[in-house]
């Protein structure tokens, strides 16, 4: 049995989570503070993948990054980068698709911290950056952990968006969820069962770990 799709899925989820953690922390911090109209628009865009059919998002990404025209053509001609039907494309799509799962818990945790915590730090002469690293971040650790695990688990389960932009290329874009679908199509229920069981187990352990690590602080995985 070919376990490549499982490894590919884990690689995709790890890279996506890391990228989103780096983008998500500053972005969530900005969203938690900003009151501008621009913020509402950004927030809506980030939340869209939660409600949008994954195939719709995948379709637009496919159009946007097609090497025949637009940004996709420019990227292909200038940097020789192709996002369609490639692993990089899967990372890009996953980052967009899983973004609300990283941003949501971190932003809401930051908003729940009393404003006086950062104010106290400022009066001690500390910069915004020092305050974020030394005061805010350590006090939202459970929520950051929740966000990391949810993002990872959610990326494991991607199907529609990954299929649209990545297709089903063995060893390149054929992740576990697509391998399940493909196996069922080919009446190979045994492989489908194995892939499904592995995905189910990993996801279950991860969600359980959120509650264990947070010592039952989280009331729901989306908190």
């Amino acid at each position, binding site marked *: 049995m070919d376990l490549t799709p499982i490894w590919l899925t884990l690689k995709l989820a790890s890279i996506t989570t890391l990228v989103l953690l780096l983008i998500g922390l500053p972005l969530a911090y900005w969203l938690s503070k900003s009151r501008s109209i621009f913020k509402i628009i950004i927030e809506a865009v980030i939340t869209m993948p939660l409600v949008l059919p994954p195939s719709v998002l995948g379709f637009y990404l496919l159009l946007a990054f097609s090497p025949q025209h637009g940004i996709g053509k420019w990227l292909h001609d200038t940097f020789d980068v192709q996002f369609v039907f490639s692993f990089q494309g899967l990372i890009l799509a996953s980052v967009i698709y899983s973004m609300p799962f990283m941003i949501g818990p971190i932003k809401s945790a930051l908003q729940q911290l009393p404003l006086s915590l950062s104010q106290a730090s400022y009066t*001690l002469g500390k*910069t915004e950056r020092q305050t974020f690293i030394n005061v805010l971040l350590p006090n939202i650790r459970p929520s950051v952990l929740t966000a990391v695990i949810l993002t990872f688990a959610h990326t494991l389960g991607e199907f529609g968006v990954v299929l649209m932009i990545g297709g089903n290329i063995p060893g390149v874009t054929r992740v576990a969820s697509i391998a399940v679908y493909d196996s069922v199509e080919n009446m190979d229920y045994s492989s489908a069962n194995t892939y499904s069981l592995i995905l189910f187990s990993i996801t279950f352990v991860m969600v359980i770990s959120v509650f264990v690590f947070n010592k039952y602080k989280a009331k729901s995985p989306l908190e």
Partner: protein
Amino acid sequence: MISVDIEKKLRAYKGQQVLKIAAQFPAGSITKIYGPSGSGKTTFLKIIAGLITPEKGKITVNDTVWLDTDDKLSLSPQERRTGFVFQNYALFPNMTVQQHLEYATDDPQWINRLLTIGQLETFAEHKPEYLSGGQQQRLAILRAMAIKPKLLLMDEPFSALDPKMKSEIIAELKPLWAELEMTVLIVSHNPQELQGLTDRELVISFES
């Protein structure tokens, strides 16, 4: 000399109110600020610290302009470096007593002296959730003083202390403020409180 002349619109129970204060505080003085609940005492302290910006006003501290709305000048809270004791203490849940002080200053002797003044030596490794209300309040005072500010702003700083502890800590703090030449503003909602500690008084009330 600290000179403050500010105007700030505030939403209050009776609709919009204007907080309008013009006052001067001589260097090294200790002033009690009191007024009814919701009259803007906390807002006044936060405006001085640079945490809230008023619509109009000018604040000058020892010939340095901290705020001048006409010139669109406003120093950041970091540049003003006032010692601020928050009414809700604003302690950092992730830090121990010792770490709170280390975050503010890197002078170990000063930290030890502060711990002695606040009678918190034996609690140095405790985080705020394991301290009593009174201990938390003392830590908030020590943290604000750790940066040796020239201006100390205290918002109801003794409300959680029993009378004995309150007089003990005040007896320690007063000579220290004089030694460090600190100007101190203490907010209290109780006009009888702090008698004998402060040498000046400012009453705050809204102007409709």
